[in-house]
């Protein structure tokens, strides 16, 4: 007789779980195929991309599309991808940093302090968040042109900060709310100033939330197309998503080049998400205080 026993769930439960797996798998496929197609197309010649019937399994993979857009190969299309990339990095990173600083200060204030008009201000921020950015494009364009901010990085940074701040405040507020006030009080009794208690206790515990807010803010700025296409003109400020339009000519679209550029846009966003994913897992505060 065996000393260990294995538990066999009833057959209908196993069927149910298998069905669930299958449904999840199918859903994932449907969601991934367009992305996969973009990535595959970035490594294939135009002829294979446009072939009919479609070629699902790539026959010859090549880096030519990347060489081409960076102006390195024999066939050059002379797009300033390097400038677009730098513009995107500078604009997204700066606006994310500013949105995070404001978000941390604002989120902490909403979570910890009582002040007049608190509810109204918070509601206002959330309502602002509900307005689609594109609806603001015309007024923003007119004001920016008066201020000379059209086609400047600063112009886009200001727009993205104001788009992101309501969201970062809302998310970070939620994370600070989860951290019991007693922890900050214990730190103050232990000899900390309010500021030290924040940096040494509350900030590390809210790190996952702040990282999540940062990733979302960065991705919003990095991927934004509608407003950037209105407010930028030249290599001084054009970002990568706007740069994608350069691949369309009057009669042709360079699908291969466009896909290669799309991959360049995707990679940093993906890398960032992977880097901070361990911080994205909340629940660090569990155990410090009895729930």
């Amino acid at each position: 007789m065996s000393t260990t026993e294995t538990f066999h769930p009833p057959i209908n439960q196993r069927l149910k779980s298998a069905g669930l797996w299958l449904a999840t798998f199918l859903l994932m496929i449907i969601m991934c195929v367009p992305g996969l197609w973009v990535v595959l197309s970035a490594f294939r010649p135009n002829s294979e991309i446009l072939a009919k019937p479609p070629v699902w399994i790539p026959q010859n993979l090549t880096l030519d599309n990347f060489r081409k857009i960076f102006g390195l190969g024999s066939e050059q299309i002379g797009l300033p991808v390097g400038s677009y990339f730098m513009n995107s990095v500078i604009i997204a990173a700066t606006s994310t940093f500013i949105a995070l600083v404001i978000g941390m200060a604002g989120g902490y204030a909403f979570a910890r302090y009582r002040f007049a008009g608190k509810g109204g201000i918070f509601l206002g921020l959330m309502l602002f968040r509900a307005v689609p950015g594109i609806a603001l494009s015309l007024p923003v364009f007119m004001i920016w042109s008066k201020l000379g901010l059209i086609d400047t990085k600063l112009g886009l940074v200001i727009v993205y900060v104001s788009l992101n701040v309501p969201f970062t405040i809302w998310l970070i507020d939620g994370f600070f709310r989860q951290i019991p006030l007693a922890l900050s009080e214990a730190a103050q009794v232990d000899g900390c100033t309010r500021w030290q208690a924040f940096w040494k206790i509350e900030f590390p515990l809210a790190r996952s939330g702040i990282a999540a807010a940062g990733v979302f803010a960065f991705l919003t700025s990095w991927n934004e197309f509608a407003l950037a296409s209105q407010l930028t003109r030249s290599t001084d400020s054009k970002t990568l998503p706007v740069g994608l339009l350069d691949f369309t000519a009057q009669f042709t679209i360079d699908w291969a080049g466009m896909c290669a550029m799309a991959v360049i846009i995707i990679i940093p966003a993906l890398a960032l998400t992977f880097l901070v994913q361990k911080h994205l897992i909340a629940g660090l505060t569990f155990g410090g205080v009895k729930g």
Partner: protein
Amino acid sequence: MAEIALKGVMKAYGKFLVVHGVDLDIAHEEFVVLVGPSGCGKSTTLRMIAGLENISGGTISIGDRIVNDLPPRKRNISMVFQNYALYPHMNVRENLGFGLKIAGMAPAEVEQRVNEAAGILSLSSLMDRTPAELSGGQRQRVAMGRAIVRHPDVFLFDEPLSNLDAKLRGQMRAEIKKLHQKVKTTVVYVTHDQVEAMTLADRIVVMRDGRIEQAGAPMEVFNRPRTTFVATFIGSPPMNMLPGKINAGAVQLADGSSIPIPERLKAKTETGQEVVLGIRPDDISPVGHGLSQDGSGATLRLTVELSEPLGMESLLYTRIAGQEVQAKLYGPRLVKPGETLDFRLALDRAHLFDTTSGLSLEAA
């Protein structure tokens, strides 16, 4: 020396006064327990001593310094919170050493102090665990360790045992008492549990609605409650309260029956005065099962409505003048509901309170 003095301390939230001018002097190395029901202002008072709440009026001094405007870190106090408040991202060693590190103490000395505290509280084997990996009792000990490691002038405890189960609460209560004997420091301890208050305190301060109702040694508060509130709050099960009127040297109850006035209180009553007779369940027992028959007393024949056997004693529910009364029966004898017994009332330990003021006639 770390005596604490509260003079006319008040706390208001907006227009609402929650602590009404509390006066209290706590001696060096004294263990004082603030006890009272929820919302009586005991925690607020403690938090004002800690510096976690602003003081709306009056002064608080620790040692010879008035600390009203000092932040918590400058008061040289430490505090154990109800929910432990351990830093979740630090292990036990880091939790214990955090305050010393902030104070800029040399690492070697931090280590020595942390180890000393860990030794006192048997935490040495848990030093590398995070709070999430500890049981409730262990977390509580770490919280106490974090308090003693800094050698503060004053320990403040804010209902530290209320999250523990009954058995552990008993153990930790004993540990806190031992700790105080080892580390002689002034302690202010807040609880709503009168058993904790009785067992731990050098002095109990009973609070109600933001005021001190009575302050005194545990047995003094138990034996000579100043008001009906203290009488019913301290002691478990609570004191039985029988309203009546003084008439011909006896307390006449609602149904016309009367119980003699305790001998020592006779001089303090006047005929026609509305009073409440208070008598603890321990002082009402079936004849032959607990109280001796001498001294002043009365014997009443009562019907038991409910019996709760607790092992060596039973709690009996009966009625005097229509009012439910609890009595104690000592010795393992089973009593059935409906049984009628002669109960002895030890009137020399009974109390009389004025109905309108609620004050004990003894104090008057």
